[in-house]
């Protein structure tokens, strides 16, 4: 099969050194695959001229779906026919990125048959990305994968493939079942994932605790961060064990953001009412400290990359929600969120941007969430605020009541 052998001195240099080389991977694939081979030559040309040659993606895909494939064509397809078309196919990964070798090998076999043999395991959103194929291969690829229980992930103005941290699969800190929630939501919203009808993309990411190992707070429109309501349990014996190898006051107590801990060399104490559950102490002394009480998550909303109005981190919307199958409350909320976004967002406006434009109140009222100080770092600074007629009625009624009782209710 092997086509033209390209001279690739620049990228060859990237085969040296201790870190595994993507160039080596490309060469591996290139041995039996013309597309991969041309991708090598194509890349060397980029390195030589310091410039990319890919064109804007055209709209390609599979029947009945509006996403899951990123169309890609080269400007210099004549020179590198193997990458004249070079579309990627996004396969929705299983929750937590767990696989069996059997499943993975099957994925590989199909991909070798239809594509470049190159993959991204995984893409930044979470998909298993199959890197580079031709338009005519898309339908066969989809038939092969979907018949074996694999589906495409999201792209375009749609729900994007939800993703999560390993959670209960291998972590002592998770506050809900991140794997199940992610699976469940993905199944629930198959239509929204495959058929773009949103104003823009919508991402969901689920982390089991404040460590946020899937970086939800920074790159998901809906960021689900596990947390708890209850005191931190302390195993004083284990504290003593840590004390043997750790300066508890410097490394833990002194770094507690709320200064609610103390350690006198004998006993560690936590004023739980002041603890903000940042997880620092727990991560540093996992054998000695653990959350207790009610488990659930904080829902945050709106994070995104900088285009157009600057990066956003997700904002706390619901300070605490219990997350247990079938997750009805969360699903209802998500639907309300989408409804509001649909009504208020212009094309290419992420939900965070729309909330910024329309105001948090409009959003919270629409989804039926009350204002709570946990949603903010600090209250507004400028006296430029809205009062609804209903607000005024409420304020006046409160004052009338106060007049009666003689007691103020600020």
């Amino acid at each position: 099969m092997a086509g033209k052998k390209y001279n690739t001195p620049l990228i060859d240099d990237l085969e040296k050194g201790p870190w595994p080389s993507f160039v080596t991977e490309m060469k591996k694939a290139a041995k039996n695959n013309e597309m991969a081979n041309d991708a090598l030559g194509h890349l060397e040309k980029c390195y030589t001229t310091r410039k990319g040659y890919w064109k804007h993606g055209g709209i390609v895909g599979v029947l009945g779906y509006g996403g899951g494939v990123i169309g890609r064509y080269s400007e210099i397809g004549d020179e590198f026919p193997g990458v004249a078309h070079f579309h990627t196919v996004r396969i929705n990964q299983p929750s937590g990125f767990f696989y069996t070798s059997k499943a993975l090998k099957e994925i590989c076999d199909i991909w070798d048959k239809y594509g470049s043999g190159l993959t991204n395991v995984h893409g930044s959103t979470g998909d298993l990305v199959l890197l580079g194929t031709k338009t005519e291969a898309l339908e066969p690829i989809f038939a092969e994968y979907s018949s074996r229980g694999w589906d495409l992930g999201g792209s375009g103005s749609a729900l994007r493939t939800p993703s999560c941290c390993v959670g209960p699969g291998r972590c002592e800190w998770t506050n809900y079942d991140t794997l199940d929630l992610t699976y469940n939501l993905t199944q629930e919203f198959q239509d929204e994932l495959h058929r773009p009808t949103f104003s823009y993309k919508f991402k969901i990411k689920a982390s089991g605790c404040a460590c946020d190992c899937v970086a939800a707070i920074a790159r998901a429109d809906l960021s689900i961060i596990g947390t708890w309501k209850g005191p931190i349990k302390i195993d004083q014996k284990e504290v003593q064990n840590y004390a043997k190898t750790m300066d508890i006051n410097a490394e833990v107590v002194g770094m507690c953001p709320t200064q609610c801990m103390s350690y006198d060399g004998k006993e560690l104490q936590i004023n739980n009412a002041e603890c903000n559950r940042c997880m620092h102490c727990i991560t540093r002394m996992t054998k000695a400290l653990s959350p207790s009480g009610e488990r659930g998550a904080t829902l945050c909303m709106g994070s995104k990359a900088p285009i157009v109005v600057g990066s956003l981190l997700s904002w706390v919307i619901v300070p605490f929600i219990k997350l247990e199958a079938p997750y009805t409350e969360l699903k209802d909320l998500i639907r309300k969120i989408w409804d509001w976004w649909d009504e208020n967002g212009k094309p290419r406006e992420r939900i965070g941007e729309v909330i910024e434009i329309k105001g948090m109140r409009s959003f919270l009222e629409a989804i039926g969430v009350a204002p709570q100080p946990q949603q903010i770092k600090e209250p507004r600074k400028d006296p430029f605020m809205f009062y609804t007629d209903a607000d005024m009625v409420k304020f006046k009624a409160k004052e009338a009541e106060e007049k009666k009782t003689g007691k103020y209710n600020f």
Partner: protein
Amino acid sequence: MALPQRKTDVGPPHYKQFLPPIVQKNYGKWKYHEVINPTTMVHVAESGDKLWTVRVASPRILATDTIREQCDIAEKYCDGYLRYTTRNNVEFLVSDEKKLEPLKKELTAKGFKMGGIGYGITNVVHTQGWVHCHGACTDASGLVKAMMDELYEYFDSKRLPNKVRLAVACCVNMCGAVHCSDIAVVAVHTKVPEINHETFKNMCELPTVIGSCPTRAISPDPAKKSIKINEQKCMYCGNCFTVCPPISIKNPEYDGVAIVVGGKINSLRSNPKFSKLVIPYISNEPPRWPKAVAAIKHIVEVYAKNAKKNERVGEWIERIGWEKFFKLTGIEFTFQSIDDFTFMRDTMRTASTFKW
């Protein structure tokens, strides 16, 4: 009697002629000071000279006769020198310790109120209100009087963890720059202004009026040769009214006051901070604004009970968290406290780390 010859651009008189001799002598050579009590402090110069200051409350609106009284006292005890502070108190500067007690005695006798030094509450920065400004949605002097009557002990005796700076603004122009006060009152309108379309065309410039609106709520109404206001966007700042008289925004029933807290000016320990909105609306209740006054007093008391020594109100709140502030004070958290203006991005919380 003929008028004297006017001069222009003479500028203010040179301050030096108004400095007491002891100040002239020790100018820029002060070594340290001691706060003796809320009414008195002493500054000691490198030369060893001592200068006692007695601070006296002022309603800021002074009749000329009162100024004359102050002058008479200054003549008697301070060689005729006196000064006012940046917060509008009057200060008597005494270089002869023997005159200190007699001065205080006379001040007391004449009904002057001493205090305001050190860690308590001093005079309230405020604005014109109904006494003089067209924009006022409340009276400033009256509010100040009502507040200070209630908080008086913190002026002349009782101490707090640190200074608590109060302010009152009679509209969102916030002339007193109340936006960085420990606790302040801002008077607010709560209803969209009405426009007299008849007079509009003759009295107002369209671009100026449109440009005056912070939220772009105003657009032209070509049919009427006037403007229209988008009710969804207007947040009643009154800026359009300031630039265009035919726009009217005053509303006796619904104008009121809001309470903001946690601001500070100086850079000690922490950066200067803006005050933040905690109570969005209290009805205007002249002559004593009982609920607004009670709210302020309540916040002062919760602060006094919970803050560490040296913590300003805003520093205390930032240490415990705003959610805790609302909890400790029992103040209801409303939508109005959620920023939807220029600082929205920085004020929304972006972590699950808060207190229940």
